[in-house]
């Protein structure tokens, strides 16, 4: 597949994630949109990894070029998992105190 297609797809997904962050008020949904962004990145990484791999194969059939991209995805997933645990803990804590997950209500701190 031409790499542009993957880039377009991932950028679209990434932008949808951004739009989600910008348009939703529910902290959990916002967080989910961030996860969507991360997944778009992951997919793009894999696509690039395969692209570089394809390029390397023309010179050396045993080349492992591109593997670092997939490993990076692995680390992103790890980090994402850790973030989710912390993030959800924070959201729950806030919910316990305010009974709301609306980020528009987060305006005690301003100016």
């Amino acid at each position: 597949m031409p790499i542009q297609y993957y880039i377009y797809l991932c950028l679209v997904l990434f932008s949808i994630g951004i739009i989600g962050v910008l348009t939703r008020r529910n902290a959990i949904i916002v967080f989910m949109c961030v996860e969507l962004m991360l997944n778009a990145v992951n997919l793009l990484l894999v696509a690039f990894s395969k692209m570089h791999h394809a390029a390397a194969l023309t010179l050396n059939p045993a080349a492992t070029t591109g593997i670092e991209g997939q490993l990076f995805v692995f680390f992103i997933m790890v980090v994402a998992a850790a973030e989710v645990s912390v993030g959800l803990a924070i959201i729950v804590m806030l919910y316990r105190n305010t009974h709301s997950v609306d980020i528009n209500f987060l305006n005690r701190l301003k100016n």
Partner: protein
Amino acid sequence: MSTTEILFYFLSALAVFSAIMVLVSKSPVHSVLWLIVVFFTISGHYVLLNAQFLAIVNLIVYAGAIMVLFLFVIMLMNLNTQTEPQKHIWMKLAGVISGGCFLMVLISLVRQAGDMQGKTALMKTGNIGLIGNLGKALFQDYVVPFEITSVLFLSAMVGAVVIGKK
């Protein structure tokens, strides 16, 4: 058009559609479910790209663990369509426009990017995505970052405990 290409287009279309549905769903639960669909389509892409390990991990970690966690929290909070807060229409519009601008700028960049011309992502072939190869690389070259992520997890753990306990 080969099967892979058809699959690619189908998965892409589904992914974009589901992603949009995540945004527009009124009910948080629906959003989560749509997101899981996105993750599945992405896993499908991984399979197409012959990255089986990542495909599986994606399903287990994201769709399985993380999304369930989300769902669980949402259920716990008893969030539903009625309680779901909505942003002002202008704010939404602004969000969409700026996100669209972001997308447009990046895409126009990619279209001009000469070094991407004629490059293709290898599909269905290539063995770098296989678990054996990944594992070797992970525990040889990438052992330091791998170990360091343990610190990350430790801190996340401690953090969750600190925040979570009464």
